[in-house]
């Protein structure tokens, strides 16, 4: 995987830990390409600290223990200075001990359930407060249709369960009755949605405006949307807002019947601004595919990578330990026109955008937060977490308890 042209001395190695095969390859392959693209661009600009960057790609094959193994290989054998990788939370959990033990850096680019802040990990994807909660806020607003009844549909695992737990608490705090919330879980790769979609239809025909908040993940989305289309659930009747459906996923679906369904992200390809347009153009050129789309986790890598480069330059070295300390406070422009900042809790600030699906598989941004929302590692809506705070700058702690005033207690 190591491009042999450059010898180890004069390069800084960057590890890319994304599945290129197995179930997650669908999502992660693009991120590998993104990283190669970014590194290529950076090298064109002369690299970092006068050294060229060198990408080391491995394939953890959607196999969680293999993620840990490959992470270890990247850090100890290939001696990479930072790793950009993982998609699922479980893969991150699996590599976490490795990064801690070997004191290296992981940039994690995907929205996740939160409840974590580690010294060695930088979370460039959305925390729940940067995606789920604003999405619900939008739907409750006048523009969003003043939704009164909620279906929380998700794949049966930690991310959706946690997100839904947070949302349920949040909705109740906004006065939504228990009876107006329907929670439904399905297995990974669920492909027969007839019953559930018809249940949703039933739940939504009770007279109150209903919306579906979907934390359905991965492969299950396509059949879900196909079934929505087939059973004729229109966005004007029951809008579905999804947290894991982006441009990349829509590229695999006929979107005409899905017009108006929503997604909440921190970036959409359709966002109009010069930085984004330039990026898209270069990306298409790099991949030699004029139809290639961009999406939110890609943007997270763009930001993360830019931040890492700046931090290395600021620290004057690629040594992970130094870079970790240099990273908080670093700012990098995102592709939606703002400037994201790495926070002391290792999350970043991001705008939240709501998009409606268009017939061409792109999103129409119909709403967006006024400014950038800072990522919150510990949600305010769960009793166990609301007292926790992460701060790696002053407190040097990922889970400081503001009540007991102790780190990790």
């Amino acid at each position, binding site marked *: 995987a190591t491009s042999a042209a450059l010898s180890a001395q004069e390069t800084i190695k960057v590890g890319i830990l994304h599945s*290129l*095969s*197995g*179930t997650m*390859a*669908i999502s*992660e*392959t*693009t991120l590998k390409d993104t990283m190669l693209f970014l590194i290529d661009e950076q090298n064109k600009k002369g690299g970092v600290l006068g050294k060229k960057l060198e990408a080391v790609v491995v394939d953890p094959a959607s196999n969680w223990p293999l993620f840990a193994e490959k992470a270890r290989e990247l850090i100890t054998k290939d001696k990479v200075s930072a790793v950009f990788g993982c998609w699922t939370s479980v893969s991150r959990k699996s590599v976490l001990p490795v990064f801690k033990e070997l004191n290296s850096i992981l940039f994690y680019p995907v929205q996740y359930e939160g409840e974590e802040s580690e010294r060695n990990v930088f979370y460039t994807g959305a925390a729940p407060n940067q995606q789920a909660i604003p999405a619900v806020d939008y739907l409750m607003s*006048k*523009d*969003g*249709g003043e939704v009164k009844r909620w279906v929380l549909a998700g794949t*049966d695992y930690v991310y959706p369960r946690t997100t839904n737990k947070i949302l349920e608490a949040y909705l109740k705090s906004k006065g939504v009755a228990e009876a107006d919330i329907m929670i*439904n*879980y*399905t*297995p990974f*790769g*669920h*492909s*027969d949605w*007839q*019953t*559930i979609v*018809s*249940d949703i*239809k*039933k739940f939504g*025909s*009770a*007279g*109150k405006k209903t919306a579906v908040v979907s934390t359905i993940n991965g*492969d299950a989305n*396509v*059949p879900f949307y*196909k*079934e929505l*289309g*087939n*059973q*004729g659930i229109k*966005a*004007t*009747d029951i*809008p579905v807002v999804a947290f894991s459906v982006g441009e*990349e*996923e829509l*590229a*695999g*679906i*006929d979107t005409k*019947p899905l017009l*108006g369904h*929503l997604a909440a992200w921190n970036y959409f390809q359709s966002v109009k601004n010069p930085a984004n347009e330039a990026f898209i153009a270069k990306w298409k050129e790099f991949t030699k595919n004029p139809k290639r789309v961009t999406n939110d986790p890609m943007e997270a890598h763009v930001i993360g990578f830019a931040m890492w480069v700046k931090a290395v330059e600021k620290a004057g070295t690629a040594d992970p330990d130094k870079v970790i300390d240099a990273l908080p406070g670093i700012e990098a422009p995102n592709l939606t026109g703002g400037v994201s900042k790495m926070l002391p809790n290792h999350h970043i600030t991001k705008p939240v955008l709501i998009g*409606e699906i268009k*017939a061409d*598989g792109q999103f*129409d941004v*119909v709403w967006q937060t006024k400014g950038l929302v800072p990522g919150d590692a510990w949600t305010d809506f769960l009793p166990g977490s609301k007292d926790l705070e992460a701060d790696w700058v002053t407190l040097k702690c990922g889970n400081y308890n503001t009540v007991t005033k102790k780190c990790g207690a």
Partner: protein
Amino acid sequence: MVLAALAWLPSAAVAQAPIDAALEKLTTDSYSDTIDAIQAIAVSGHPRAAVIIQALQGGQLAFSAAEKKVYVRVGNGLQEAGSGAATAAVPADLADVRANNRVRGIVSAAMGTLTLLNPDPARRLEAAASVLKSRDVASLPALEQALGRETDPAVKAAFAAARAAIVLNKADASDNERVAAIDLIRKRGGQDALGLLRGLPADTPKRVKDAAEAGAKVVETQLALWSGAQNVWYGLSLGSVLLLAAIGLAITFGVMGIINMAHGEMVMIGAYTTFVVQEVIRAHAPGLFDWSLTIAIPLAFLTSGLVGVILERTVIRWLYGRPLETLLATWGISLILMQAVRTQFGANNREVGAPSFMSGSFDIGHMSITWGRLWIIVFALAVFAALILVLKRTPLGLQMRAVTQNRSMASAMGIRTPFVDALTFGLGCGIAGIAGVALSQIDNVSPNLGQSYIIDSFMVVVFGGVGNLWGTLVGAMTLGVINKFLEPYAGAVLGKILVLVFIILFIQKRPRGLFALKGRSVEA
């Protein structure tokens, strides 16, 4: 609402009011402005009001912010929205007037009322449905007028129901009026009715409330019955998907005894063939799109079948008599095929569209049946029937069975075993390819497509009884129906677990599956 005024007297000549101010609002690219504009245009009584609103609904309304002008797209040309005059000069900053769900909701309610008198009964039915959904009191006069004129009984019933829905929610309706409305709604039945009856405003008088509750109960029992039927339907439709996925395996595994781990990839190849066919059609003959699946079926059969034949000739044929090793080899093959597709088409999902005859749904009573699923059931059964015919009624079928039961004796009988082997395996794979065409309609077309069906396929074949095609049919349908009856109670996850446990227990009772092969040779 204001719209009603327009709808009420659609044919009456209303004074032409200036709508320029409203049109200008459409050029600000703000949803609230757009909504205001629609409302203003609607009350204006302007002759082009309907055209403009319809254009917005169809995404044909465009504006130029610089010129503060609104246009309607007509074919490739542009019309000025207000005057209808064609313009040749296309403004540089021409952009679509955007609509979000809220805008679309208001537009469709407006259009609903506007089309109550449309000459096309289907459109009138739609209009009735959208009025019923909006329950907008303002539509009442228009509705009543339309009701009076209506001759088509179906549409009339729909209008009456919509009227009842409005009356029920009208503040100043009398109790008697409301009870009558309740009666009507109860008779109509269905999920909407239940929603209406249960969703009365809090200040409804008790008598009305009681009547509504009683009515709701009736509707509920009726719906419960229908939902039983609906579950059976869902079950059969899931069953037919399982059948399609498994039926090729019933040949390669059931008949030939090859533990064919690459079966799923044959399905996948079929799905990708569909994708390629559609791509070609999109690029070269868009008019044929509705025929894309019909064209894809034979091609998918040939592609997967050919891959199967090649595999049989190069790998599988060395493994007869060593069934367990076929597991190893086919697993390897499946990895290779998956990666090959990933390399060729990318790791992402590919879009396969639905031809128009497979889109949408229709109702039988209170049961909704989607066309796509219906076709899949029909298709699965047709494939099954064809296969049974080939195996049981043709000399080739006899030779296939003979070869798989005793290869060397079959050869001694003059049967060209290599040819028959290749053909049998090819047939199994080809059928899997056909299944891929159907599955492309409901699932991801991705390199992993096959993986998600392989386990289910083996379950079905084994549950039904290895070597018995009827077993595969009944097995698939049984598992489908059981699954769909469990799902509402246990949830999808637990439901699936329960189905697996059921299979395990069932096999204890019938260790050779549902339709066990019988006879001395099997028992030995």
